[in-house]
């Protein structure tokens, strides 16, 4: 059977593959794609051997800096970044978790200053028992992955 792409190919740009389906809209939020004027196509709930169900985003003529794209490592650590030129994958990038996260994640502590005043959140990333956690620079409390909420830029 002929291989058929569920999401059509782009000539130049960036493909974000292997995003867990339930994280797709968070990835869109983090990368601020709702305000992006480029042509974007995405598919979700596609079959994936790795994830069960995956999502994929293709953004034409847009290339991300490492600092920008690494932000999604928080919620989609297995995502694969493919750089496309002239319909060919010219580079594959792995994500790495940044040591500091500024202004993307909400602090889970309800009495943290960042939840009451117009202050950008700031976390350092720490690992406890191999689990990624975020330590709030302000209230010194930990936000773990189960309680990770993305601040919507919508």
């Amino acid at each position, binding site marked *: 059977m002929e291989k058929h792409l569920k999401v059509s190919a782009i000539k130049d740009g960036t493909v974000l593959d292997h995003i867990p389906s339930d994280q797709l809209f968070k990835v869109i939020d983090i990368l601020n794609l709702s305000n992006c004027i480029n042509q974007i196509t995405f598919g979700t709930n596609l079959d994936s051997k790795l994830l069960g169900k995956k999502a994929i985003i293709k953004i034409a003529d847009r290339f991300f800096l490492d600092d920008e794209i690494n932000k999604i490592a928080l919620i989609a650590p297995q995502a694969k970044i493919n750089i496309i030129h002239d319909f060919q994958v010219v580079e594959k990038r792995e994500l790495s978790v940044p040591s500091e996260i500024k202004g993307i994640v909400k602090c889970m502590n309800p*009495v*943290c*200053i960042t939840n009451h*005043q*117009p202050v950008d959140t700031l976390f350092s990333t720490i690992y406890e028992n191999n689990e990624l956690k975020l330590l709030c*620079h*302000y*209230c*010194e409390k*930990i936000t773990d992955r189960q309680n990770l909420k993305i601040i919507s830029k919508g």
Partner: protein
Amino acid sequence: MSKNLISIQDFSKDEILEILKMAAEFEENTCQPIFKDKVIASIFFEPSTRTRLSFETAANRLGARVIGFTDSINTSVAKGETLKDTIKMISNYADLIVMRHPLEGSARYASEISKVPVINAGDGANQHPTQTLLDLYSVYKTQGTLENLSISVVGDLKYGRTVHSLLQAMSHFNPVFLLTSPAELALPREYKEYLINKGIRFMETTNLTDVIPNSDIIYMTRVQRERFTDPIEYERVKNIYSLNASMIKGSKPNMKILHPLPRVNEIAIDVDESSHAYYFEQAHNGIYVRMAIITKLLKSL
């Protein structure tokens, strides 16, 4: 050393010892008006008697003028001004800001906005570093050292911020901690992991009488009714974590009882007359420690 005092975690062992040494010098000579030309802002967004008066006494003994407010009701905060704007304005007026605020992390945020040093006088349940330094000064004064002591911490180890900061600060000095609390108010896992990572020995128990004979310091804290979901459970434990004169008979001669105050019923009045009682002197020590901190921060400018 940073130009602010926000969290006890910001201080190295040497910086802690330097503050204690300066505090001892101020205690020797309590009136040193070295900052006659300085204005200190004491801004309390929630009421506090002891901490505010202690800071203002320290500032006055150093000759500084004090401006400020004692709660946020009659200030522009009540009109909806952001903390950022309040701090920006006050740092135009004063040479140093002492701040208490109910929100956690507010002091760190204020220090990033302010042009002048900020001392955290309590940011919600997070940090109260001058309390910790006066606790350490009290331990040092009564024991002659901070090293290798057996310290019992009693009561609310779950929510008590003074307890958490004390554990962190004392961890520089190879203590043994005897953690005594009802199961509901045991020390949270992250602090136990902190102690384990630092190689600090500790033992957990629910029995206060067991730990008394081995303690150099007994640090009492208040067990508050509102911490319990089951009111019967509170009634059951409230008197177990209460010290009275007969319980401390077999204690070490050097043993001292500390308490961040206010106490309710966790230390009986008959303990006050004992040579082991030290909680009122402890509060008094706060003035010298705060004089030392103010001096250190104003001199580093």
